[in-house]
Structure formats: C-alpha cells, structure tokens
C-alpha cells in the first residue's frame, strides 16, 4: 500500500476529501520526522514507537580497493511495534494465512 492509497482509504472512513486527507497524512509523517530530527521519541499507543538509535563510528573497508576507511557515527531512525500490533500481525486471534 502506498501513501496515496492510504489517504484514499482513510478519506473513506472520515468525512474529508482525498486531497484533504493526503495533506493530513503528510502532516502526520512530517511531524514524526521533525520529532526524530529534534532527537525526540514518538510513542503511539496501540501502534508502536519511533526513536533514534546512535551508531558509533567504526572501521569499514572499501569493497573495491580493500582500503580501510573510517565510517563516521550516525543516527538511525528505529521503529518498534507495540504489543497490540505485534499480536495482531501474528494472528493470535483467528488466522487467514493464504
């Protein structure tokens, strides 16, 4: 499912147009992006949480030349599914495996 399909389905559930819903979907993910950028974590009950994980610098190698290079530390956005969502995905209650 893409962002456009998501907006379309959401707009069918609420009384907003597809265009308005697309705008809202963008604002929602934009706000999560901004929070992560500030170093804030985002906790969405029943869904999961987003946070930044820090990766220290490490020594890597250029796969072509085999030369050692220093890989600088970086931040990685990380999502952890909430308990409810994890269980739903595992079909704890009635499965419809295809």
């Amino acid at each position, binding site marked *: 499912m893409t*962002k456009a399909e998501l907006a379309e389905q959401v707009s069918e559930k609420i009384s*907003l147009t597809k265009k308005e819903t697309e705008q809202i979907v963008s604002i929602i993910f934009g*706000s999560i992006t901004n929070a992560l*950028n500030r170093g804030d974590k985002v906790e969405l009950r029943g869904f999961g949480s987003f946070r930044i994980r820090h990766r220290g610098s490490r020594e890597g190698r250029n796969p072509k030349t085999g030369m050692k290079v220093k890989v600088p530390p970086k931040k990685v956005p990380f999502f952890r*599914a909430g308990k409810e969502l994890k269980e*739903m995905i595992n079909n704890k209650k009635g499965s419809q495996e295809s």
Partner: protein
Amino acid sequence: MVKDDIIDIVYERVGFTRNEADAAVEAMFETIKERLTSGEEVNITSFGKFRLRNKKERVGRNPKTGKEYSIKARRVLTFKPSKELREIVNKGS
C-alpha cells in the same frame, strides 16, 4: 511526543475542528494496522516502509537458566527508514 501532540499539530495546520483532526489521525493509524494485519506492506514515500518478515522456528535459550526452548515460527514487523528520513536525522548533528 505522543499521539495527542500529532493531533494538535494537524489541528493547528489544517482548518478542521480538533475532533476532526483526532478522527483523521486515529483513522490513519487504524488503516495502517489493518493493512499490515492482512499481510500487506505499507510504503510511505519519503518516510519509510513497514514490512512484514516471516521468522522460522528456532531454538532459544533462557539466559538466566540456560534452558533451551523452541521459539515458534512467527511474523514480525520491521521498519525501513527511507533514504530521505535517514539523511534528515543526520543533518545538523
């Protein structure tokens, strides 16, 4: 940041009532959950992709007692951040 903060941001940015903003935010996360539960991936351009992975059954060990037990085959959800998101959070640090 929690869901209520997102609702406030939507409410401030768009000309709807707070109830409408609330309904829209809830409906969006519910829709994503439904799709994932039905086994479909959800790809949000410029944000990231929610993917489902099938894990095989394997033998695990209780780290305290050292006892072996079987971890059943299961489906897990992973998130792959988009290149754009990874770049944004690494900027200005």
